[in-house]
């Protein structure tokens, strides 16, 4: 096991290098750079910018240099100084920006994850056990409903309803009076009052697929002979269920659990934009759209590394859960 772990860690090094290259490369894919994007968006607002200012910024941002030099400089900063570069768009160091938003992002992500699990597992198990019952159909339908509604539209509609019928201040995670206030119990309460909307919207999409996978896997297991045998032997139904079938049914799910966290971070980005949440998602999307390259690249790398680690974790979990998968 230890050897396996070491080998996997060793394998991660080339992966990480490749990731850093790709992360940087993705930003270079779209034509243009931060400056041209900025000039174009300024022009779209009827604003313009002097040529001399353009050149000054180009120099300041180092955009005139060849791409590989930019990349090497960036990597050098990261490895030797832990400096991820500056965000052009925010005029701030990348790390400062990301850190300032990470806490709330994790709060939302974890809350959503919890929501998904708490909702999906019982429903999934119930649907499998009571296959084709009214309850099964109902749960399935509700689960699919969340999946089938485009998230961003749902977010907008919920927001409109909150405004129109409940006269609520929309957008963000805090009421205006708490936004710049120091942390207090009132602020925490205010946060929770706002939190449910994004959590529900982000959660509904994930819930459906989890319910389905859980149900499908469990059904597979429940019809296996050992279950029949166990039932014939008079094992209580709940023990029968949780002793082995549920564990095995979790197997394919576990193989994806490692990806859940980064997906929640980046997957919630679109909803976060619509809801105007002060999380990392909108930061990332905007950075990409603006070609704010160090911010975007650092972000992509951060998320990628999270995934690589997650994959490793899920592989380990898989081995632990299903003894049939033996490590060579």
């Amino acid at each position, binding site marked *: 096991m230890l050897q396996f772990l070491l080998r996997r860690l060793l394998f991660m090094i080339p992966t990480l290098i490749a990731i850093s290259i790709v992360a940087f490369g993705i930003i270079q894919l779209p034509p243009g750079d931060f400056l041209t994007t900025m000039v174009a968006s300024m022009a779209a607002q009827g604003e313009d910018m002097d040529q001399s200012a353009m050149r000054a910024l180009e120099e300041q941002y180092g955009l005139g240099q060849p791409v590989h030099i930019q990349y090497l400089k960036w990597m050098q900063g990261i490895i030797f100084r832990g400096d991820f570069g500056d965000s052009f768009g925010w005029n701030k160091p990348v790390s400062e920006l990301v850190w300032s938003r990470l806490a709330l992002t994790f709060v939302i992500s974890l809350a959503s994850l919890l929501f998904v699990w708490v909702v999906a597992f019982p429903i999934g198990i119930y649907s499998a056990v009571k296959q084709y019952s009214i309850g099964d159909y109902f749960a*399935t339908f509700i689960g699919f409903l969340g999946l089938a509604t485009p998230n961003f539209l749902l977010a907008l509609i919920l927001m*409109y309803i909150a405004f129109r019928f409940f006269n609520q201040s929309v957008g963000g995670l805090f009421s205006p009076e708490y936004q710049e206030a120091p942390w207090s119990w009132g602020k925490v309460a205010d946060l929770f009052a706002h939190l449910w909307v994004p959590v529900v919207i982000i959660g509904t999409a994930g819930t459906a697929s989890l319910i389905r996978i859980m149900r499908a896997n469990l059904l597979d297991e429940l019809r296996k002979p050992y279950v029949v045998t166990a039932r014939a032997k008079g094992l209580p139904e709940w023990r029968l269920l949780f002793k082995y079938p549920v564990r095995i049914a979790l197997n394919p799910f576990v193989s994806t659990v490692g990806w859940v966290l980064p997906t929640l971070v980046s997957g919630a980005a679109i909803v976060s934009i619509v809801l105007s949440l002060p999380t990392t998602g909108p930061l990332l999307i905007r950075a990409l759209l603006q070609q704010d390259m160090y911010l975007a690249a650092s972000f992509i790398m951060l998320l990628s590394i999270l995934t690589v680690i997650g994959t490793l974790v899920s592989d380990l979990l898989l081995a632990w859960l299903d003894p049939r998968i033996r490590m060579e």
Partner: protein
Amino acid sequence: MAVTDAKTLPPETVSPRAADAEIESSVSVASQWQLMWWKFRKHRAAMIGGVVTLIIYVIAIFVEFLSPSSPGVIRADYTWAPPQQLHFFRQTENGMRWDPYVNGYKVEIDPEALRRTFVIDEEQIVDVGFFVRGETYKMWGLWESDLHLIGSTDDEVPVYFLGADRMGRDLLSSMIYGTRVSMSIGLLGVILSFFLGILLGGISGFYGGTVDNLIQRIIEFIRSIPTIPLWMGLAAALPTDWPPLRIYFGITIILSFIGWTGLARVVRGRFLSLRTEDFVMSARLDGASELTTIWRHMVPSFFSHIIASLTLSIPGMILAETSLSFLGLGLRRPVVSWGVLLQEAQNIRSVATAPWLLIPGLAVLVAVLALNFLGDGLRDAADPYNR
């Protein structure tokens, strides 16, 4: 186990319980697909899902004929026009008579709010006909026709069964045209990723060792790059001088490029646990080629799981397309997809004053639900253990 001759027996008989099952003679000689069909028929929700899916694909095929007009027709006097209700019968002195019509609009311009105010005018009657002659189009780009299933009998007065968008374009027509694009993107994308996923996942799980390691690293690598930036990067890199059709294929490939890895990992997990199973061993010992073993013995044994993943991934593709549109990186007019329509409706103005523009969201919902229920039924039907 019970099965030794994998070459001559139909694959479903690899099921350990097939041999001892008390089944009618017709069943015993039925092919796997026949058995699946029999089982599938029993699943009511799945049948409904299947029928709806079929209808949606039929719509996608006969788009030109079914839509009252083409989605690009702009009409100045009908911006943000609300839906008109279709009446089939008209009240005459002799009682109700079959004569489909809609009521026309009374329009006022409000210069301060910058809008036209529409009121449905009960007095005005616009005749509606079936199989009417209207705008000419090229069916499947092959021959010209001007026959439409339904439409206004008067060329000058359009009808809007689902209302109009901000430029007076007919929403119903746009949605029908969007069906073709959205449904085919989903299907094509899934077929591509399905193929890649099973092939690479299968190889990985079947052989294990170095091959497995290599493929796993590739998957891990692709998966580790966050989806949205990858989409955005790739979509933004599509050359803009491409014609809309090629952009469409480009986006399909981008979507499936990411989609296959999830399936591959699942398949691999199954292979890893299955390859030590006795029936696989027997098949191999019996001299079945590796490909045969994979496709005829191992794949069917976890077909159910693949179906479950697959049904969840067609809608995933459809939704991914809408997300790309939301980011302004998906398809753009003159190509119309549900994503394009939703993106156009993704604003407070539409939600507040023109809620009918959200109907494409319902189309997505119905399609996704239908596909899911269909897949659900298929899953159960394909389950080799479930008799």
